[in-house]
């Protein structure tokens, strides 16, 4: 075996070991490195009451409600599966906060199962669509969402 081939084999073996180690580390991290809990994860394995965590999912259409005090908003966050966590938030909503859109809430789980949010971050999806060309259905949905949230802003 030529020295060149020996080096090639050595480097390839080292790379395989490295990629394997990296994948194992990423796999082990997969829960810790997540930025937020999905609603189904929060229900299956709830964090301690009062512990600072994040909840991420979709704002369920038709659930955004303004409370009587004028600054508290309640809504339901749904996940990929049929699961929902009620959220309560008092503060200014981000521009992209809309029913049917993604949201990440920072806060803690209350004893009654409601998520008390201190901060809301809007999550953008992977779709980029110009205003003029969006589907009529989506357009109507966004319009509706805008109208139903008008009082909140």
């Amino acid at each position: 075996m030529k020295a060149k081939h020996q080096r090639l084999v050595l480097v390839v073996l080292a790379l395989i070991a490295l990629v394997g180690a990296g994948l194992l580390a990423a796999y082990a991290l997969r829960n810790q490195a997540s930025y937020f809990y999905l609603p189904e994860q929060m229900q299956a394995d709830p964090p301690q009451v009062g512990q600072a965590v994040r909840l991420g999912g979709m704002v369920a259409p038709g659930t955004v409600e303004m409370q009587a005090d004028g600054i508290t908003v309640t809504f339901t966050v749904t996940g990929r599966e049929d699961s929902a966590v009620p959220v309560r938030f008092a503060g200014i909503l981000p521009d992209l906060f809309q029913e049917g859109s993604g949201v990440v809430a920072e806060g803690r789980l209350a004893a009654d199962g409601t998520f008390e949010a201190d901060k809301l971050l809007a999550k953008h999806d992977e779709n980029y669509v110009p205003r003029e060309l969006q589907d009529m259905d989506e357009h109507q949905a966004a319009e509706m969402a805008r109208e139903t949230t008008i009082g909140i802003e």
Partner: protein
Amino acid sequence: MHGFANPKRFLALAGWLTPLLLVSGFFVTAAALYWGFTQVPPDRLMGETVRIIFIHVPTAWLGMGGWTAIAISSLVFLVWRHPLAAIAARGAAVPGLVFTLVCLATGSIWGRPTWGTWWVWDGRLTSMLVLAFLYIAYIALAQAAQREGVSARIPAIFGLIGAINIPIINRSVVWWNSLHQPPSITMGKSAIDGVFLAPLLFAVIGFSLIFGGVVLARMRALLADIQADARLRRRAMEAD
């Protein structure tokens, strides 16, 4: 391939290819950015801020592409011992770092109006920041190796090890829940409407041409630097 590993032939080729890449890259990028900044309608949700995509995405890809180039060149250097491969790896480091930093800065500016925050420690943002740190470490290591006359194998090994971060950046939005959205452009399909996609692809081509031109320019500068070092060392030996 062995023909171009000859530094003399490489310098002759790079001599005319460098300005060609830089000038054509400048014009393509300028045209793509003009197109993207002025001729494209606003996005349905983000409005005008969507235009940051025409800088953010090309710089992100090239930031990752730069380290991929470092890793491949380092592999070639370690196995085949082409001295030019080590130079190529070092040439890709500075433009790679600059593009990564531009990606981080534009992403932060984009995140403020879109997500409501300048920065979050989610998987994608954190792994991209790690890439910037890896670039800085690599540049320092390669420079130190040259100055101290140590083998270029040490930075090459570091370049290979650091490549593990590239698939992690790519998969970070799939493996972990993250604030950053999942990939819009995957094999064969795109969730980006054609109106945005066409200028985006042109911007990617333009930025890539500039990247290539800067890499060649850096390689020429590094070769000249090494030659000057060698000459100085020879003079010092003769003087003794």
